[in-house]
């Protein structure tokens, strides 16, 4: 059967693409739109490396079909910085060395941004549970949690 013709908004830009029914949003982002910042770690929604927001809602792009996003708005890691300026979360991840290998970092940043947009002042426990769907095998999470708390504090004061 013919491919689906889909128009949507990605990081504020109107995009058009063709996809098979079985192609996931992650497949479309990576292979068709060449936005490889979202990573494929498991294809089962268990690692969070493919996290994006769909109409502002945090989801795993490996658990969304490409054809489902017609007319909807997607934000990926590629849309997080504004021009020359890193998002405070990105800056804090760098300053706190909250990444080692970096494969999980885009997912953590997208998920953390979604958290701080809902709750500007989360507790350590709230952050840990919100991010429980993002696996990191390098850091033990310590510096990631600290970076998110520090970014939240800075965003509250600015």
């Amino acid at each position, binding site marked *: 059967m013919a491919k689906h013709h889909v128009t949507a908004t990605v990081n504020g830009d109107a995009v058009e693409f063709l996809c098979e029914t079985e192609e996931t949003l992650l497949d479309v982002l990576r292979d068709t739109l060449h936005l490889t910042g979202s990573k494929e770690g498991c294809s089962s929604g*268990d690692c969070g490396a493919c996290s994006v927001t769909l109409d502002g809602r945090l989801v795993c792009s490996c658990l969304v079909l490409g054809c489902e996003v017609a007319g909807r708005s997607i934000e990926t890691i590629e849309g997080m910085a504004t021009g020359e300026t890193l998002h405070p979360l990105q800056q804090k991840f760098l300053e706190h060395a909250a990444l080692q290998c*970096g494969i999980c970092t885009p997912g953590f940043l997208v998920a953390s941004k979604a958290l701080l947009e809902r709750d500007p002042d989360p507790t350590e426990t709230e952050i840990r549970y919100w991010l429980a769907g993002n696996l990191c095998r390098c850091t033990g999470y*310590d510096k990631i949690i600290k970076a998110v708390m520090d970014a939240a504090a800075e965003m509250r004061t600015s």
Partner: protein
Amino acid sequence: MQAKTSAALPQSYVGTRTVRPDGVDKVTGRARFGADFNLPGQLVGRVLRSPHAHARILSIDTSKAERLPGVKAVVTRDDFPDQSSEFIPAGEMMMNYRDVVRNVMAREKALYEGHAVAAVAATSTAVARRALKLIDVQYEVLPHVIDVVDAMKPEAPLLHEDLYTAGVEPKPERPSNIAKRVEIGHGDIEAGFARADVIVEREFSTQPVHQGYIEPHAALASVSEDGAVELWCTTQGHFIVRAHCARLLGLDIGKVRVTASEIGGGFGGKTVVYLEPLAVALSRKAKRPVKLVMSREEVFKASGPTSGARIKVKLGATKAGKFTGAFAELKYQAGAFQGSPVQPGTMCAFAPYDIEHVKVIGYDVVSNRPKVAAYRAPGAPISEFAVESVVDELAKKLEIDPVELRLQNAAREGTKAAYGPKFGPIGLIDTLHAVEKTNHYTTPLEEWQGRGVASGFWFNIGGETCASLTVNEDGTVSLMAGTPDIGGLRASLAMVAADELGVPYDKVRPIIGDTGSVGYNFLTGGSRSAFSGSMAVVEAAKQIKADLCTRAAKLWELAPDQVAFENGHVKPVGDTNGRHKPVSVADLAKVAGKTGGPIGGVGRINAQGAGPSFGTHLVDVEVDPETGRVTILRYTMAQDAGRAIHPSYVEGQYQGGAAQGIGWALNEEYIYGADGKLQNAGFLDYRMPVASDVPMIDAIIVEVPNPRHPYGVRGVGETPIVPPMAAIANAIENATGIRFTELPMSPPKVLKALKERGLNGVKA
């Protein structure tokens, strides 16, 4: 986007917390990992894997798949020439290529579920998937064996009809699954135990655990008509990948160019080849680029993990707490081919202690599981888990504080290690004092809470390393290294280069070169990359400084010994001091062309002098007496870094290793069914710690400088995973009075033990 750096000249960068040069790419999604590379005309590769744990492969018919439109190449065992059974250097590792070729593509037999049997390259994923279904493999299913003890039984199904136990004289008459027997030690343990007032003897078991890197294996190969090979892959050692691919496919090493992508975690699991030779073989046939990426299920079934094991430990001590004799027997699973880390397991078991009489015996045992790969301090966490548990039990019996007992017996400079030689300056005692001094150590505990401590040791290595420094015409510096940067290496090397040449840190741009652009490098492993890489950078900088002095001396018409290099400038010294204004690296770079050409240096070394790193971990747990759940309440660890080049990334290694150890201790395991198939090949049921499972991990950096390194650096990457399992088992014992000897200490096991002792029930 310019990220802030936290330090400025003339202060030394080493020891500060700079922002990593590759950081911005990694927080913006720009960084390219293994699966992020693509080429025009690229084909999709897929691997057909054995559904059986043990089966003879009677025939493989690929004709139907080859006829499917869109299929451009199919490869099987016939595409990989057999290799003789001899140990050949691959990089620094000794590999038996007879096994390597059989592991990348099953030959006579499929030896584990997930063993590669064939691979296809097609124009789309859908076509590739259909093609796999069209490959007709005839199997004769054979009885399988999964457990290490079962595999050692004489009547066990035999994996390799030609495998005779090495290390026993005379050679056994019959083949078996026991590949090797190793033994180390010194003194006379019988005499040692005779002098003991107290002896503790226990048996332990551990399960295989996977390295669990979040990035699956991925490789993209492009082979041209003239046989030139371009390979992009995620690996801890692209020079090792080059050596393996050249050997397995009969290629000239010089014709194979391998580029290491950014690597999404390895922990030892990306030191061997899986997809890479298949991608090259497929591309060679299809004459088009071929990309292969593993699914998570394939990662679990066909790569890693580390060994599961059975361990016996016997340790004796005097009333006063002096260890008198130590014995251990280690049985390690190697997976389908020999080569478990049992040898280092034997050498590390008692390494933290000064014991006169020691004997450790180890067995390397094959069974129908994926061939094990290195995992952080390979072999050490397993044997040290058992030993550190027994040390704790001994402390309890002797009524001596567990830290005090360790201090009494701790290895120090001059101690004869269990594996023979004497230690140089080491920091074990310092790490014990460091945790003892924390308020964590003295904070009161409540009911059903417990506190545990354990120490750990790993050797660390050096090895062949190249790094080049080029001073560009504007005074900026290009740094090229050849070991993949897995956790901040580029930052550390740039800091050392900046200090050596006296240039600002953000004027040094470090990159990881491909196998064609930098000299041979052993892989990133053995906690060696920052240790060895910084030595190579120092060597390269030395050449540049000498060259700059020569050029300045000539410009000033002075003798070479009348100039010297001091914090970024060449200046006249001695009686000519002050005769000329000191000239900076940048100024000399401007006139490089007029003074002899480009300025650069290359460090080419085989780094020796690696200093062992010891660590001590302190953990509080709480046990739910009704469900057996163990919660990690608090975690503190101290480890000797020699000198921390970048404290944040050293702490990161500590914290990450501890978290992996927490998973190993509590929930991670390979679960097999009676059919020999892996039942939990995914992140849903292979339970790695998530953010809400762990507390903050307080990392204390102890610095006992390594005298053999210009900055005193020791490797730090592996030791952190050694102590956690015992520390947690000791904490659970402290909370419940029950000594757990089987990993993982998962809720069903804990609850069962509590019930057996009538300890389960409502919390007071």
